[in-house]
């Protein structure tokens, strides 16, 4: 780290001492512990290493009682004096120092912001500390699990992705927001939606409909589906970010609203459902705050091509990755024993094509909002 970065930080501290919350103090102390271990190892002339809980399939287990994915006790050692790990070790320490600075200054930044904050050329070389953000993001997640601190506790947030609309009034950082009066764009779901920041005031919703992406959400919003069916309509722009998942979780548990998902009929859509329902493998440590084991899968289904009488031109052929991924998903422990799901995935593979939600437009522009979803809801025709 270059010196120039420290100077402004110190002046800021002097002029305006930042009040640290108790959470901040806890995070800071665990950061210092991490740093102290390096010093300690160096004193003892031992190679410094940091234990990072493993974020892979092998280190998650499915809690059958609670129906969520939990992280196991497996840890990976990250060593400074290991050729393949030296750089990521250095990056881990850098992220730690960056978070420490954010907390000291009482500011939050996006993960992209942190990437820029830490990115510089290593002195005496032509090498960058981080080549791109994709290199930085996993390291941030590593620090989260290693310190057992949530992203917001590290004063970080992700890029805002996802929107919400519906008969609900909330307070966001003190501002009152009526989500039924958000026009065509909806309320952009922020990255941090913890109760300290967002409070639910009142609502008239009976359920939450989560759709996969913006285009489908637009259709529902334009058709005022949420008004007609008294629901909260959200989307997560593909794989929903943590803010969206946490908000769905809070809507489900705090307001007792059932959550229904309308996703593409492809492995990607299946996995989005899986993540909403029992948590992700990558962020298994967050499942308790995010997973909604009661969430239901509305569609699209492998049988919809025939059931809805779609034209053959909407078929998208499965490629090899799709097939591989479908088989992988089918073998996850939380899908393994669900006959309906096994049948569903098997049928998609034998269909040899996938369907996007948008394909229903080929029937009629508002087929999805006027026929498809209402019928499924009425018949309670879901996959669980």
């Amino acid at each position, binding site marked *: 780290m270059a010196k120039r970065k420290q100077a402004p930080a110190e002046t800021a501290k002097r002029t305006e001492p930042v009040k640290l919350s108790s959470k901040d103090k806890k995070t800071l102390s665990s950061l210092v512990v991490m*740093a102290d271990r390096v010093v300690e190892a160096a004193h003892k002339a031992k190679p410094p290493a940091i234990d990072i809980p493993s974020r892979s399939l092998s280190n998650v287990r499915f809690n059958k009682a609670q129906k969520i994915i939990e992280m196991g006790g497996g840890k990976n050692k990250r060593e400074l004096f290991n050729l393949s790990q030296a750089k990521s070790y250095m990056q881990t*320490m850098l992220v730690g120092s960056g978070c420490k600075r954010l907390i000291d200054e009482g500011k939050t930044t996006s993960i992209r912001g942190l990437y820029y904050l830490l990115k510089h050329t290593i002195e005496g070389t032509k090498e960058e500390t981080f080549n791109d953000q994709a290199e930085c993001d996993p390291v941030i997640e590593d620090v989260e699990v290693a310190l057992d601190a949530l992203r917001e506790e590290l004063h970080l947030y992700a890029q805002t992705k996802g929107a919400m609309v519906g008969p609900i009034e909330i307070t966001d950082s003190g501002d009152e927001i009526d989500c039924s009066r958000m026009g065509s764009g909806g309320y952009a779901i922020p990255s941090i939606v913890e109760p300290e920041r967002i409070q639910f005031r009142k609502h008239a919703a009976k359920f939450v409909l989560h759709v996969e992406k913006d285009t489908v959400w637009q259709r529902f919003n334009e058709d005022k589906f949420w008004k007609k069916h008294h629901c909260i309509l959200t989307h997560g722009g593909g794989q929903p970010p943590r803010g969206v998942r946490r908000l769905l979780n809070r809507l489900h548990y705090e307001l007792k609203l059932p959550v229904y998902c309308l996703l593409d009929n492809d492995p990607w859509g299946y996995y989005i459902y899986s993540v909403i329902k029992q948590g992700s493998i990558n962020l298994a440590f967050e499942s308790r705050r995010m997973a909604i084991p009661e969430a239901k899968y509305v569609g699209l289904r492998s049988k919809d091509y025939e059931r809805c009488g779609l034209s053959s031109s909407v078929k998208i052929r499965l490629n090899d990755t799709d097939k591989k991924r479908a088989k992988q998903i089918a073998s996850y422990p939380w899908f393994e024993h669900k006959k309906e799901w096994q049948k569903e995935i098997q049928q998609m593979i034998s269909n040899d094509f996938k369907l996007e939600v948008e394909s229903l437009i080929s029937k009629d522009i508002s087929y999805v909002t006027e026929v498809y979803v209402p019928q499924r809801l009425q018949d309670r025709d879901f996959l669980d």
Partner: protein
Amino acid sequence: MSGEREEAPASGRRATAESMAAQQRSISVSEFFTKNRHLLGFDNPRKALLTTVKEAVDNSLDACEEAGIVPEIWVQITPTNNSRFKVAIQDNGPGIVKKQVPLIFGKLLYGSKFHRLRMSRGQQGIGISAAGMYGQLTTGKPIKIVSKTHKTKPAHYFEIHINTKTNSPDILNGKGEGEDIPPGDKGQAYCQKNEIEWINDYPLENPEDKPQPIASGTRVTIELEGQHKRGKGSVDEFLEQTAIANPHVTIHYWDPEGQSRTWRRATRTLPPEPKEIKPHPYGVELGRLMTMIKEQPTSTTLSAFLTENFSRVSAGVARKICETAKLSTRSTLKKIAQSDVDKLFQAIQETKIAAPATDCLVPIGEPLLLQGLYQVVPGEFFTVASRPPAVYRGNPFLIEVGLAYGGTVSTKKVNKEELVALLNETDARTVKQFLVSTFDGLGPDGADKIISASGIGTRQNPSKLKRTEVEELFTAMQDVSVSETQQMQLYRYANRVPLQFKMGDCLVTKTASSLNWRSYGLSQSRGALPNGPLTLMVHVASVWVPFTSESKEAIASYDEIEKEIRLAVQTVGRRLSAFLRLRSNIRQEGERRNIFLRYLGEVAAAVSDINGFNRGQLYEELLAVAQKKTREADTKLDKHGKRVTDEAELNSDNVLIVETPLLAGEGLSTGGVATGKGQVHDTEAVRSLKKKGAPRAPRTKREKTKRTKR
């Protein structure tokens, strides 16, 4: 013959027995060799020049060693006209007594070495007189000899023609008696007056020193038709290789272009004098056995004949032989019939006789071989190995092997002027041919690489290259890395004499090519010598080296010799592979350190940002851990958990490693906080690798062997 007679009509008989008899007469050796000069190494002008130098140098070295004088040799080649050269070789040997001079230089097959079994360079006594004869044949000029046996006694000067009919010398000067040159200053004046060449004093080490007169010695001058060309099979190469195998010799060389070069001795200790041995019964053929019996007084008993004329034959062994041959030990040679000799010969083969004594062999010795190799071949790794003496066909022999790794490729050793000269000298038809034949170890692949990099046509005539093309070729030769495609250079020696021709026919080449060098970490095409910047020298020392021909260019195949060569080469091969492993480990360690070093500064800064610990101190501490860590990573453990170090194998007297910056293992020891010096060192190491071998002075050595002054 019978066929001819049938076809020829009776009336037209071409010749009668009588007329044919008129043409039948004995052939003198000289005449025979005049016609078959290729048998003696005078096939072409270029080789003739080399053979002449070689024969003279061999004789000089043999003479010096026999007399116990530390040899110093002067070789002067001066062009007299277009294709003629005057070759003069002078030594500081014992000199030759007046009576013997004409015979030694003017009679073929006259010498002291043929009849005895003793390790020496010359064997038959043909060499130098054949060179004189060749000179006489091509230029008509006599062979000139100056010989001085004592500081205060007159030297003798002879000009000799060989009478090829009678194989005898004709002395041309001093009314057929030769001339005497008085000793001292008078002699110098006499020489000057009569245009006799003689070097009076040793060259001065310091200009202030008093000149040291040469007390005795011989100088041979032969004028002959020859061709001077550098590169493979040249005089330069011969002298260089001679210097490797004879570290006790100093050679001064003036080449035809007036350039001089000196190979200085690495030691003043002479090799011990080789002992003469009696022939071993197993090595004697039937014909030779018969001759030996004839040469003895007829009253000698069979037992006495066997015990006195052969080595390792005791009275007991003699009795056994006689028993097997069903002959009486007490019968005199007079009674031994032709058929009995045959029986005796068979009996010898069937009797178990101890191997001959091997103390008659004088190896170069590992330390001296190592020094010789180090002084002449540029490189970074040198190793030598020798085998205990062994026996083939009753002749003791001994194998010594040296190996050098690294060094500059021969293509990078020439400068532009030399290249132009070489291009003009060559008789190669294409550039590729030129490159392959001129530069040792380059090989066709390397030549192709150079040619394609230079952008000139492959089939270009080398002497017709344009100036710019020569320049491009030169640049390509400097730039293109051919160390991978370059083939191992093989130096073959027999009794310390380098063998330069008929490489393919030689047992040494065959053996070296048949080994699997890939297991030593080198690349090798099937059945070929391995590739890489390698020089292998193999020395076969024996009382009788089996050559494939009289020109002494290749060693004949004997299983016993092949086995010994193989074992010795394998020994140095293993050491080389240990060195290569060590080197690649060190290189890897350097890379590893660089990676760590790069990140240490960042880690120290980040940690100090978090907990406020002193950044500089932390960096130093981490640096220490890094050093320890990288060292540990390179320590291998064997099956029993003990450390395996290649160093152990390399850490012996017969290995010499020249330290390059890369091997010195810099990188971590220097540098402050996050200086990132690793990269700088990296490039320095690479650079110094590239130019390795160029300057010899700043080198340091790791090994105990004392470095001699240059």
